């Protein structure tokens, strides 16, 4: 049960976690999910190769899959929240079947819906996303609760041989919002230009 979970109280700062994932990003392409992970990415520094979802809840991982299949020579990182991932939980099964080696799906898990008043999510009870990812066919799925684990994972994103999943335990706090552009047409067009296809 949750009370015996050894990692329960070990949690990372979300902004520092996003910075760690994007440090030395090289040619990495980033997709973020509706809500706080989009603000986290903006706080780490806006980049034309970031595609931020400001809506379409549940879609982040699948946007990452389509992108990963279209760009097999580039590395794709999806970072989304636990609530957004739960809404698209079936997409873990879909990705588990495809398993593109250039895709890493990362969930910043604070067990709460941060954008709507910090209501508890299913992961605050007994739903384990890492176990779900493994059951869906991810061969490499990590439960990250410290900086060392995060740094190891950040390195693996660049050279993995199979699709990766990581759940990163983060604190349920609300750092000041940092907002990237929200014009979807702009975000789409600048992303495609940045990777040389438009």
């Amino acid at each position, binding site marked *: 049960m949750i009370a015996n979970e050894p990692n329960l109280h070990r949690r990372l700062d979300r902004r520092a976690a996003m910075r760690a994932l994007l440090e030395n990003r090289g040619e990495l392409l980033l997709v973020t999910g509706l809500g706080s992970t989009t603000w986290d990415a903006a706080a780490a520094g806006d980049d034309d190769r970031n595609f931020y979802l400001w809506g379409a809840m549940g879609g982040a991982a699948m946007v990452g899959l389509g992108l990963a299949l279209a760009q097999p020579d580039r590395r794709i990182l999806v970072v989304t929240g636990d609530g957004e991932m739960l809404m698209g939980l079936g997409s873990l099964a879909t990705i588990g079947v495809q398993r593109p080696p250039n895709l890493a799906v990362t969930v910043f898990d604070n067990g709460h819906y941060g954008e709507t008043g910090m209501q508890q999510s299913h992961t605050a009870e007994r739903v384990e996303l890492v176990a779900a990812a493994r059951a869906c066919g991810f061969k490499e799925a990590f439960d990250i609760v410290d900086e060392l684990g995060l740094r190891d994972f950040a390195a693996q994103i660049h050279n993995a041989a199979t699709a990766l999943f990581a759940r990163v335990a983060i604190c349920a706090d609300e750092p000041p919002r940092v907002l990237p552009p929200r014009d979807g*047409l702009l975000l789409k067009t600048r992303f495609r230009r940045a990777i040389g296809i438009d």
Partner: protein
Amino acid sequence: MSEAVKADVPDWRDDIFAALKAAEIRQVGYVPDAGHARLIELCRDDTEIRAVPLTTEEEGVALAAGAWLGGHRAALLMQSSGVGNCINMLSLTKTCRFPLLMLVAMRGEWAEFNPWQVPMGSNTRAALELCDVLVYRVEHPEDAAETVAAALDMAFKADFAAAVLLSQRLIGAKRWVK
């Protein structure tokens, strides 16, 4: 899911596949439907197309957006019931003006024996139009290729979301042969 269609008889399903190939579709997301069985088989067998089975249709809307971000054209195959599942995800398509082609096998509109199919089947067009998806419809086999090609142009040349409804009469007339 086995299909009664004889593989050696070219028909409108092959015409649709040829249109997808001509438009250089590279990813096809699908939730299986008997009306799409042959098309799914053709896509899965094609080495240039990545066929992606979905757990629910809205996954395919996001898949197609990601594909386009990476320079691939994607198409989605679904049954009319699945259109309802796509509604909020179509906000991604509209807000970013992503191209999208949906091929929808109709149920619940013609000689339907399952009443549970009728509520969504009778509102498929309205639901799509409410989301600003351009809707085309194929009633006769000879119109399939041209209609799908026209919808592909609206999607990938004009950057709109387009859906082609394959009528239940069309599908039934060809499929329910024992």
